[in-house]
């Protein structure tokens, strides 16, 4: 962590910051901006209660510096991805009770873990065989389906958690995957916001928490909503369009660069003049600095997303090639790597359309197509991080909101039964990189892939694991007046940590 821009300081910063402020007075852009800057950013003129903000120092020695969180929306099938279940082929067309295994629908876990949201739990009991073949891959010999030819090459760098569960049986589980809360409960900040809040930036010229992806459904915004932590800690949507990468981050077309630079400098000058009349005005000082930062962000961001700086070989590695199905996701992931490289703490990469993996029908066709778009780019990211040595400090998480039923879903008599329904009871995510065991499988679902039966983890355990690797103790980030339940904190999955 040698490249941290943050100054070590006393835990609540006051004395230190004041000393820093008295230094204010050099010209625009001439400051080495430190952590204090960011902290001033939330200074409240009339705040009624005192509460110490996180210092930006990790609570204990971190293993990871930044996170690339890859999300696939709609719920990929655990069986057809990273938790192959040969038993499904054996018992195809049979009902759960005909398999000889205990009927998972009658397991107390069925009701215990999930909360029915809408329309009732639909029961499906005729088993649908695996829609794709599988084999053991890597030295670790981990079972992966044939839809992942490239990721299969990386299993020795991956850590699978095959025993996730969540509590919402509908697609609000997607937002739950990010903020840890069932939709019917009071909502919370998302993981990326907590990390941004807890650790701040490694590069003051870039946002701390970035969202890379496209969506037509605005509910996706809940995945990077800071809720009560405030918009400052929300994910900043970075468009990969170099012409307009950041909200309001582009100079109007007919304004000259010099013209705007002068204008920023002039605002700075006026504010500094004003500061003479208001020597006690701390928000004013914060604003002066936020202007400098704004200007530099506007300059830095286009550079980060400029993929032309990468070699043709790297483009090829990520599957970036016009017309190829992997092109756009490859761009997102290569951008994520560049952001991590530049010190962005947390990049949420949305690697699907909203609900894309929701294969109630035609799972075979839909999953095959979606896998093809994802497989090579993600494998490319892992290989690229590894060869650059970045995999030792970057944590990659690959996840979805829930799994899919082992049994076939039947909707209406006319449509062929070729899909699987929502399944909160057991699903698979994987992680790779900083601080993790490699080529490792943690947890297990039952023979049919229904319940997470061994080392089951609610989604916040995944959050806690990420926080832990980042050196954060979630309880220490609490905000007064905002109650979090014990389940919101989760428990780190220590077994997967090296």
């Amino acid at each position, binding site marked *: 962590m040698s490249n941290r821009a943050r100054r070590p300081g006393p835990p*609540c910063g006051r004395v230190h910051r004041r000393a820093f402020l008295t230094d204010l007075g050099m010209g625009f852009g001439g400051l080495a901006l430190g952590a204090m800057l960011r902290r001033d950013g939330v200074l409240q003129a009339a705040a009624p209660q005192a509460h110490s903000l996180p210092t930006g120092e990790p609570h204990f020695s971190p293993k990871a510096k930044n996170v690339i969180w890859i999300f696939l929306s709609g719920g990929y099938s655990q069986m057809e991805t990273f938790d192959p279940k040969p038993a499904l082929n054996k018992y195809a067309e049979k009902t759960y009770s005909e398999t000889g295994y205990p009927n998972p629908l009658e397991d107390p876990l069925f009701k215990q873990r999930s909360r029915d949201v809408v329309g009732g739990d639909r029961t499906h009991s005729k088993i649908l065989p695996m829609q794709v073949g599988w084999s053991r891959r890597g030295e670790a010999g981990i079972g992966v389906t044939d839809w992942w030819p490239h990721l299969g090459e990386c299993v020795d760098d991956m850590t699978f958690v095959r025993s996730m569960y969540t509590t919402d049986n509908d697609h609000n589980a997607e937002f739950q995957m990010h903020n840890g809360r069932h939709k019917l409960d009071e909502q919370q900040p998302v993981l990326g916001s907590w990390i941004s809040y807890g650790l701040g930036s490694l590069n003051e010229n870039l946002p701390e928490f970035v969202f890379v992806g496209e969506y037509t459904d605005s509910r996706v915004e809940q995945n990077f909503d800071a809720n009560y932590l405030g918009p400052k800690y929300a994910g900043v949507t970075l468009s990969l369009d170099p012409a307009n990468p950041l909200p309001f981050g582009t100079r109007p077309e007919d304004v000259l660069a010099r013209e705007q630079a002068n204008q920023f400098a002039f605002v700075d000058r006026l504010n500094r003049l004003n500061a003479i009349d208001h020597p*006690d005005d701390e928000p004013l000082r*914060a604003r002066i600095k936020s202007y400098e930062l*704004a200007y530099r962000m506007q300059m830095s961001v286009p550079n980060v997303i400029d993929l032309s700086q990468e070699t043709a070989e790297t483009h090829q590695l990520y599957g970036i090639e016009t017309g190829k199905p992997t092109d756009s996701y490859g761009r997102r992931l290569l951008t994520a790597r560049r952001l991590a490289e530049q010190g962005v703490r947390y990049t949420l990469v949305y690697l699907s359309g909203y609900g894309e993996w929701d294969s109630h029908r035609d799972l075979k066709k839909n999953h095959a197509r979606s896998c093809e778009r994802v497989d090579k780019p993600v494998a490319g990211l892992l290989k690229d991080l590894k060869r650059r040595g970045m995999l030792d400090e970057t944590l990659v998480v690959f996840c979805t909101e829930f799994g899919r039923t082992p049994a076939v879903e039947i909707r209406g008599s006319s449509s062929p039964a070729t899909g699987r329904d929502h399944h909160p009871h057991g699903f698979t995510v994987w992680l790779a990189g900083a601080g993790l065991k490699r080529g490792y499988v943690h947890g297990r679902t039952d023979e049919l892939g229904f319940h997470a039966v061994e080392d089951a983890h609610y989604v916040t355990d995944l959050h806690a694991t990420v926080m832990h690797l980042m050196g954060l103790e979630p309880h220490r980030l609490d905000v*007064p007046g905002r109650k979090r339940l014990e389940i919101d904190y989760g428990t780190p999955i220590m077994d997967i940590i090296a």
Partner: protein
Amino acid sequence: MPRPATPCPALRIGTATVVVLLGLLTVPLPAAAAPVDYESDIKPILKARCYACHGALKQEGSLRVDTARATIAGGDSGPAIVADDPAGSLLLERIAAEDEADRMPPEGKPLSAEQIDLFRRWIAAGAEAPADERPEEDPTRHWAFVAPVRPAVPAGADEGSRNPIDAFLDARLRKQNLSPLPRADRRVQLRRLYLDLTGLPPTRQEQQLFLDDDSPDAWENLVDRLLASPRHGERWGRHWMDVWRYSDWYGRRSVPDVLNSYGQIWRWRDWIVRSLNEDAGYDRMVRAMLAADELYAGNDEEVVATGFIVRNFYRWNYNTWMKDSVEHTGKAFLGLTLNCCQCHDHKYDPIGQEEYFAFRAFFEPIEIRTDRVPGEPDPGPYPKYDYGVSYKPISSGLVRIVDETLDAETLMYLGGEARNIVPDKPPIPPAAPAVIGGDQLKIAPVDLPPEAWYPGMKAFVREEERTARQTALTAARGELEAAQRETQDRLAPLEQELAAARAAWDAVRPADAPGLQALKLDASQGRRILANSLNELPVLPPESELSLKLTLIDDGKVNFQLSNDLAGGRTNLYVVFVDGEIRTYPPQSTRETAIGRYGFAEGQTEFAITVRLEPSADRGLLTITSTSDNAVLVDAVPIAMNGWDPAADPNRGMYLDAHPGSIARFDDIAFRDLTDNSELARFDFEPATCTAGEDVAGRDGWSISRYSVAPATSVVELARPLTEEEQQARNRLNAAERALSVPRTRLAAAEQAVIAAEADLAALEARIAADEARYRHESPDATELIQTAVELELKANLALALAAEATARRDLAAAQALPEGDENRAKQIDAAGKALTAAGQQLSAARTSLAAPPDDYTPLSPQYPRQSTGRRAALARWMTSRDNPLTARVAVNHIWLRHFGRGLVETPANFGRNGEPPSHPELLDWLAVELMENGWSMKHIHRLIVTSEAYRRRSSLGAATHPNQEIDRDNRAYWRFNPGRMEAEVVRDGILYLAGSLDETIGGHEIDHKEGLTVPRRSLYFAHHGESKMEFLELFDGANACDCYRRTTSVMPQQALALSNSQLAVAQGRLLAGRLGEELGEAGDAAAFVDAAFEQILTRPPTHAERAASLEFLAQQQGLFTDSESVPDPVLRARENLVQALFSHNEFVTIR
């Protein structure tokens, strides 16, 4: 050491609670050897973790630990502590217990080892505590639970005209030895007041007006003027929208699918703005929001106030709707965190879990209701939830609350989980918390006026219905006249030509007709399904027969069936030929079963099919003969009829279906009454009704079913080609038929339309008369009037159906008369055919109703219960009664908070024991009483506050420090005014206003928030909801639409980017620069422009240094463009830059 646990989200005010200054919550660990101090080490732990159950609020096991004496005395299990004897102290044993079942406290994390050690050492050292230690105050005597009494205004140095607010504040200033700052500069005061009361900064002209006014009451006059401005209601409306959780509908906007809040809720927003502008009284507003449907029933202007409850609506979970209603009614109006009691008794306030459900019971009977409003289409009744159905937002009418389930019961559940209902516990009746007197409410059902439970009684509904029918009648009469005028001379020649053409055809007509033409379904590509609704078919006689001829040209899958639900496509008398197999449904089933075979390749391609129908046995007997070889393929096999009977249900018809790859010919489809062998219906596709080469769709009741797939066809074809002579005669006849049918059907349609319009108007008047008699006058004549209304309505329905049918025939004739090559012909024929089918169904329905008339006519709107439970009315009255200790205090605190940037109570949504105590309790009470005793006039309170000295003080120290800071750094005593930052809406609206662009239209449908940068309406009118909001506002900490009892304020880089680069800031900055230049005219040199720009944007002239810097900047920017072609006016461009820079100036967003 952990922070004290907070068992309830006591206050949710966001990062406003976050400040760098102090780490108050980190209690330093005492050094290991230091003696333990009861007051500082032990008591805080007890208070945080134990008092809730063992204090003044509750004494579980008869134990209380709020004094050391009581702790030692112990409870049911004996002494909790034995001094000097940690091992013998039960308290220590319990807090250190390994077993979770024994361990105290039972909830939350166990005490830490360090904490337990503190107890051990404290006990070991003798468990010493101050001798005069007092127990916790009686929770029911908590200050906020006792009704406010007007305190005496403190006497001060300068009596007389002094504002009582100053008297209270000054008393404390004196006591603390604080000297208040002097009045702020007049311009600072002016800007502060404009922003505060209207949410808009003063323009230069407005500034001048005030600065020129040196009368002694200039300030008071300005205050009155701003309070009277319509902008005031918008400004404070937005504040109250925060508190009352205003939200436009959301859920799945992209679908769209309303899940939360509801369409048209903006009427509640407009009600808020209007009520504030009218100074309607806080009490009246609260009452209206909770129960306008009961208290102001029939008054639609007021009823929309129940949007407060509508806003909590959540379609997917009724309990969430109830939960949010309880929580936010409690927080917004009472400052009570009732939500804590959903799962358990309140940990701080004397409110039990059962009382939570009692409060919920006020809302239990409610449902959403949508009503029509004048001049807008009827939104129709509110659709109840149905899984899998998306509900688009309504876009007309109003949305409100209605008590629908008058006997709704509230059942108590445990653990906050609605599935855990406590068995055998009787339903809980409605009541508010007893501690504030809410258990004494008298709840009486409210009888609603007819207009309220039956909106169709409203005068405007009748008038609009009447006008619509009168308009229709006038139009119909006009069309009839036109049709008569335009056809009278044309009919005779056309009739003559038809007679001649028919004679000519008869002369050459081939001898082998009938049998000349047949229908060919060609699905070699696509699929064609023809439906016929069999409108003319009567009730089936006891024995009848259906017969048809089928020829397979290309074998594939071809079926014939009768459907018992043409619209839904349910199938009966199903016969399918598929790849050599004949299948059908056996009686009483819809299971496809093979009953025979045919040899297509062997030449069995033509079939005679008969079904002997036995409606009484609900079956048919199917016989199929191959006509080429007379082989009987199926012989009187019973098949399912499944209740098929065409006359009993208008929705029954017949289907012919050629699946992809098939070509088949149908002919001679006939229904025959076997008792007399008469034909009931016949389809032989002969020239009299059909023309060879034409698609049958749109003729004779045939239409294409929606499952058809192009380019398959259903064309009438000739069995043998006509001779040229025959063809010519045939063509002439066809042409003559068509030519005549156009004017004839037009005339018929026009005549029928007049009859229908007259009947419809008469029926409406009869329905209104009957409504009036039975509902308003409860007259004995009602029965007769109802009878008349029923009859007239039936007649009208029949006439309308006939008119619809006649119109469809007219349209069909017109379409068929189009030239064959017209590209719209097929489309119009198809549309007219469908309309004819629909009209046929309508006609059947009308005839069926005539045969068995209903008891009542159709009401003019939905009807709702005639009573309301009165539960919410009782709640609302109690809440706004003089005795309620909380409502007025909470209200004035919210008002104060928004004038001064902080509340007298810092936790505006929690006045309970876990909230912050008031900084000036007497002032709070005085203001609360003042509000109540002045008709709850909020403008009165605003006026009092903004005319106080405290409000007009300077905020700026003008120095790095001030002696007062040593005593009161946080300005709790109001020795200075608190500087603040504009709220998000003020930033946006202010830019628009100063540039002269603000559209001051008040109210209306919410505007898409994506238009926020270009549409110059005030910010509160843009869509604002939980799913997404205007990005510009969001960056400046716009309200959280789900929970915002106070705003947060942040400073972040994206704000700078928004002010520099947004379309809004750039365009408005340029506009303003141009406008200022025009105002200054010739005399406007650079210095004058700088002064004007500063004044307009920052409400003050520049300092010398600022002016110098600005002039330098202007010159610098101008220099960039001297040789530029793209910028023709470098002076203006530089000025635009200056204006934009000033919008980015800290002083613009700051309120000093």
